[in-house]
């Protein structure tokens, strides 16, 4: 508080609109209030996923540098994780707004079988558009059930996931859908631009847009508000139900897009793809990243790192030729540490 040119709260000047780092600085209020942000714990909480991510990355680089820190390997991870990252980014919004979406794995499959079936014979662009729109529609139904019918979103989306999987099986009659001749459809994920696949480019674009929506837009603020204290948000004029519905619709659309990207890569689709394995991997990524399962706090960049953290662990197991059975155990322990750490630091700062 003993700054050189203290005196009156500086007029106009210190604001630098849109400068990312400026949020960290303490602006303009008389009388500081020493917050419990000092100390290792506070900083570890703020940084969260960043430190373990860097440590893991460095360890693998030193240990298996020639294989791991290789351009091709890293780009491949990015390409393979594209669908997970897109779905997890949308799931982050759902969770921040106070919900949870357990139906993404099912929606992923439904949209990919519909799009692949259409691409088999028809226009690939139309197929992709319809596939994503089906996802948005499914998500909107989830949203309506979870908000206006007031059914807990965990149960609502769990129930919906059975319905969606059933519908997907009906579409495929239980068969694998193959579209090997639909090369236009394959271009959607496989085209390379500057050595990076379009799948990865799409992911980067979507994640950036979601990140922008969440951190910079009015809608994003309303998501945080809805998850932080729904009643307070409602009394402050936020349409809580509506904003939650929107997050579910986005999540459904993202699940559809993810499914279509993966189908485009292999030119086939099945109603048994995705499923609970995908749903829980995505949720694990979100939670490991540090987004609170209780809503109201978190960020897309955290989820981005969380999903990649899990992917790098898998990649490390492969490169080191370790028994992949231990990968599951490792993942479980990390998840517990992430949630436990969140709860613990909450307890300490409460």
């Amino acid at each position, binding site marked *: 508080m003993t700054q050189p040119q203290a005196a009156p709260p500086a007029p106009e000047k210190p604001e630098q609109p849109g400068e990312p780092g400026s949020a960290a600085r303490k602006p303009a209020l008389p*009388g500081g*209030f020493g917050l419990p942000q000092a100390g290792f714990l506070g900083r570890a909480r703020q940084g969260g996923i960043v430190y373990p991510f860097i440590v893991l990355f460095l360890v693998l680089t030193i240990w298996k540098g020639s294989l791991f820190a290789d351009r091709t390997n890293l780009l491949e991870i990015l390409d393979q994780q594209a669908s997970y990252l897109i779905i997890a980014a949308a799931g982050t919004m759902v969770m921040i707004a106070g919900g949870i979406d357990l139906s993404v794995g099912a929606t992923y499959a439904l949209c990919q079988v519909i799009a692949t079936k259409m691409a088999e014979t028809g226009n690939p662009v139309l197929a992709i558009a319809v596939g994503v729109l089906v996802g948005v529609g499914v998500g909107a139904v989830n949203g309506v059930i979870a908000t206006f019918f007031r059914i807990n979103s965990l149960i609502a989306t769990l129930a919906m996931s059975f319905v969606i999987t059933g519908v997907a099986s009906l579409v495929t009659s239980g068969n694998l859908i193959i579209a090997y001749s639909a090369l236009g459809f394959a271009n959607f994920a496989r085209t390379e631009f500057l050595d990076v696949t379009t799948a990865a480019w799409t992911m980067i674009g979507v994640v950036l847009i979601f990140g922008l929506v969440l951190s*910079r837009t009015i809608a994003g*603020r309303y998501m945080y508000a809805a998850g932080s204290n729904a009643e307070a948000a*409602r*009394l*402050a004029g936020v349409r809580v139900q509506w904003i939650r519905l929107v997050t579910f619709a986005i999540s459904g659309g993202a699940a559809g897009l993810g499914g279509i990207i993966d189908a485009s890569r292999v030119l086939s689709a099945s109603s048994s793809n995705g499923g609970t394995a995908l749903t829980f991997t995505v949720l694990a990524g979100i939670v490991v990243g540090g987004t609170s399962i209780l809503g109201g706090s978190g960020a897309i960049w955290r989820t981005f790192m969380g999903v990649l953290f899990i992917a790098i662990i898998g990649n490390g197991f492969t490169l080191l030729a370790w028994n992949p059975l231990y990968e599951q155990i490792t993942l479980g322990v990390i998840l517990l540490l992430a949630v436990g750490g969140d709860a613990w630091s909450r307890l300490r700062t409460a």
Partner: protein
Amino acid sequence: MPDNDQDLPGAHVELKDIGKSFGGTRALEGVTLTITRGSIHALVGENGAGKSTLGKIIAGAHAPDDGQILLAGEPVRFRSPRDAINAGVNLIAQELSIMGSLTVEQNVFLGVEPSQAGFQSRRELRRRYNELAASVGFELDGGGNAGALRTADKQKVEILRALCRNAELIVMDEPTAALSRPDVDALHTVIRQLAGNGTTVVLVSHFLGEVLELADEVTILRDGRLVQTVPAAGQTEESLMAAMLGRSLDATFPPKRPVAADARTVLSVRDLVAPGVNGVSFDLRAGEILGLAGLVGAGRTEVARAVYRANRVKSGSVTVSVDGRTGPRQVTVAGSPRTAMREGIQMIPESRKDQGLLLGRPVRENVSLSTLPQVSRFGLVQRGPERRTVRDMLSRVDARGGGQSDPASALSGGNQQKLLFARSLLSDPTVLIADEPTRGVDVGAKRAIYELLTTLTADGLGILLISSDVEEILGLAHRVLVMRGGRVVTELTSDNATEATILGAAFGAKERGAS
């Protein structure tokens, strides 16, 4: 466990040089204090002075960082509330811990249920409960559902719970904050009775009148330090307040600004029917503070919520006159708080934690929440303008402490309340409803809020003020509506409103008259 002689006079608890920090904030520093067995010992101070923290340390809910606690002469260090309970020390926290789905008697004996071979004996439970309740004179049905009880009765459940664990020392944190007057009297009787039976009571309270009425000794804290411990006899509210503030408090309320004779009506409510509201009509003029008085449950908050469309309205009308530009216009009662806000009504809700703030979110987001479109372009929030707007409004309402990026939870109660004022005022409302705006805030912040309310009337704002503190209503409102049973029973003006007339109307003619 408690094996000391019950009748031993002298020190029950001794605190030596107690210190406690939360994160970087020093909550208590070098507090040394002796609490006499069987006495009622009050802890007073402004919000943030450390009185609740000290109470919790005595009760074992917080462990002190420094210093020593002696219980009956023996040094103790409670590792958990259970440790403390075993040592005969109980805490009745501000937030009551009642299991709503259990019965009263199950709540009371929670964890110490009488059992035979692992099975609970309901008959034995009932017998023990009745015995216990009778011993302190509580008339509370043991088989009733605890969740359905009124707050005062829940307090009684907590007290019984403490007693059945052989509590020798009970720490009560703001036990009467949520109670209406008759319940307060009932609780005071209970507290006296406890002390009469040799139980030591540590009372953490905002209400100085209550402290003077009950306590044998008073400890005054300021900024985490002990100012003094004095016998309550010989103290006055003024002397306590002066010690708490370190400065003397002259006029508590700012002078009222008269309402202009030709002030237009900004809000008119007609025949409003809603949950808890049975046909309420009133007018509010520009620059006027209209007080809504009444007992808890009389329907004051319900009126506010109906006008603000936070509750569903069955019938009636709410008309807001905007600025004379559009003239008075009829407004339907349908809609949501969003609709009410657009009409020019803002409400500061009763509970800032449950209904007002996003505690984990930064101060800035809390303040700008209702008016984000004003600082946005194409749906993107413009950080610079947002920060400037928030800063200007925060300085207007005189909120201090914390930066805009700190979470709202880091602020004191008074400053949290000011955040809500800032949020409401940013939308430039025509009508402001303030529901218990000074509940749980310290004396200094109360004064600042009074000043603010008065200043706002000068700008032509119409204010509907709800308060359980009759003095507050008298000191601020130009007119007072007294409610009972969901209806307005009396309208009083500044001239004929007194504590006696308000309370008389609130209790109803047939029941007892004034306090």
